[in-house]
């Protein structure tokens, strides 16, 4: 190897098409807004009264910090302002992202409830977006460092692989579909005629279970292949949309899908964008200024 030839590490970090960051920033802002709208109905949960006891856990948060109505609505509104900054992009993108997530976290903290997987995922997503060039405009025709993408690939790989492995190796009821069938009858997560009907169809539940395990376990090993990348992510969209149709599991699905443009192989993404731009040049010119 000559001195001018890049080494393996340098080649790994060679700048690549960065349009995925622009698309992911906008998609994540819309997902966050959807998440924020859901909170509208529950802002009063953040108030110290009447369910002050829920805040009286080991931390005794609300016994010392009482969030009244105006403060709770102020936090909610601040979150919306943050989302606006993220959506607008440029120098407002990263500050907007952090304003939203901190306002959201403050509302959640005043509830004193357990922080679940969706909220933990948001933390990783926000860090990943912060490592990426989301404040740079014109990336649909430009290049960017792949570091943030690698970070998100590790996060998503862990998310899918560990849940898939736990289902496949530790819970036999996932192999015959009964674990999924019973989840479809959850009093709070599920409900409605379709999940109820589906829970009584053993073969369909088994197929859905196998498909879920195959995607979750296969994701980490397949998403890196250029030719498979888009197909793997399409399978992920199918899985998350199916879950969202059948169950109410909070913002995890839309949040997870919103960052898929970054996970897509950059060269595959660039080619896809070129095809879109060739077909709808007017729309593409407008979007490229984001």
């Amino acid at each position: 190897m000559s001195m001018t030839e890049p080494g393996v590490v340098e080649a790994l970090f060679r700048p690549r098409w960065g349009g995925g960051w622009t698309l992911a920033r906008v998609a994540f802002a819309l997902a966050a807004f959807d998440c924020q709208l859901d909170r509208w109905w529950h802002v009063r949960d953040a108030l110290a009264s009447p369910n002050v006891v829920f805040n009286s856990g080991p931390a005794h948060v609300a016994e010392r910090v009482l969030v009244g109505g105006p403060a709770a609505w102020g936090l909610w509104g601040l979150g919306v302002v943050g989302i606006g900054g993220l959506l607008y992009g440029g120098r407002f993108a990263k500050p907007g992202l952090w304003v939203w997530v901190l306002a959201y976290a403050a509302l959640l903290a005043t509830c004193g409830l357990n922080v679940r997987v969706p909220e933990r995922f948001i933390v990783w997503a926000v860090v990943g977006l912060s490592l990426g060039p989301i404040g740079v405009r014109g990336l649909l025709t430009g290049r960017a460092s792949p570091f943030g993408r690698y970070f998100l690939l590790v996060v998503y790989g862990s998310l899918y692989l560990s849940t898939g492995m736990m289902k496949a190796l530790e819970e036999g009821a996932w192999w015959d579909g009964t674990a999924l069938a019973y989840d479809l009858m959850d009093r709070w997560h599920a409900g409605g005629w379709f999940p109820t009907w589906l829970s009584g169809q053993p073969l369909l539940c088994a197929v859905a279970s196998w498909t879920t395990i195959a995607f979750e376990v296969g994701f980490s090993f397949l998403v890196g292949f250029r030719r498979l990348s888009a197909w793997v992510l399409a399978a992920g969209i199918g899985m998350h949309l199916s879950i969202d149709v059948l169950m109410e599991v909070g913002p995890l699905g839309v949040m997870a899908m919103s960052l898929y443009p970054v996970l897509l192989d950059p060269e595959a993404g660039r080619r896809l964008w070129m095809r879109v731009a060739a077909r709808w040049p007017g729309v593409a010119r407008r979007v490229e200024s984001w």
Partner: protein
Amino acid sequence: MPERLPGLKLFLLAALAFYFLLSYRVALTTLGVAQLPKGLPALQGVTWLGRWKMFTDLRDEHWDVVAEVQGASGWAGIDLAARYPLHWDEGPGYLRDDYYENPKRLAALAADLCRIPGTQAARFTEVRWPKTLGKETQPRTGESRTSLGSFGCR
């Protein structure tokens, strides 16, 4: 522009992958399928952000928490859903196992029930009954009850 400090970034990514691997290992212990790693309590705290347990175990039962308060005329049931209707996402907050399985939080709930005039004590019971697949109606047959605790009012 060439990437700055690519070697360091690669190391950080490898460290992140190791962190998630460790988190997965700790998550297995919470399912009761692996030997406990040394220093588990500390590891559970450190890996909390990296554990992704979702719909993993078989949940073939519905559950509810029943509250009763003791007054001058004996024990009487309290409609917890009516008294604490608020919830952040799915279901009332008091029905999260993270909440009602925590004695400190349950004591706080009891303390609030003790504000009801004439209340001398409060007690809680977890009720479980099997889910019925494919049916809208979920008959509460085969119920099992577990006492969660009884709390005297000061």
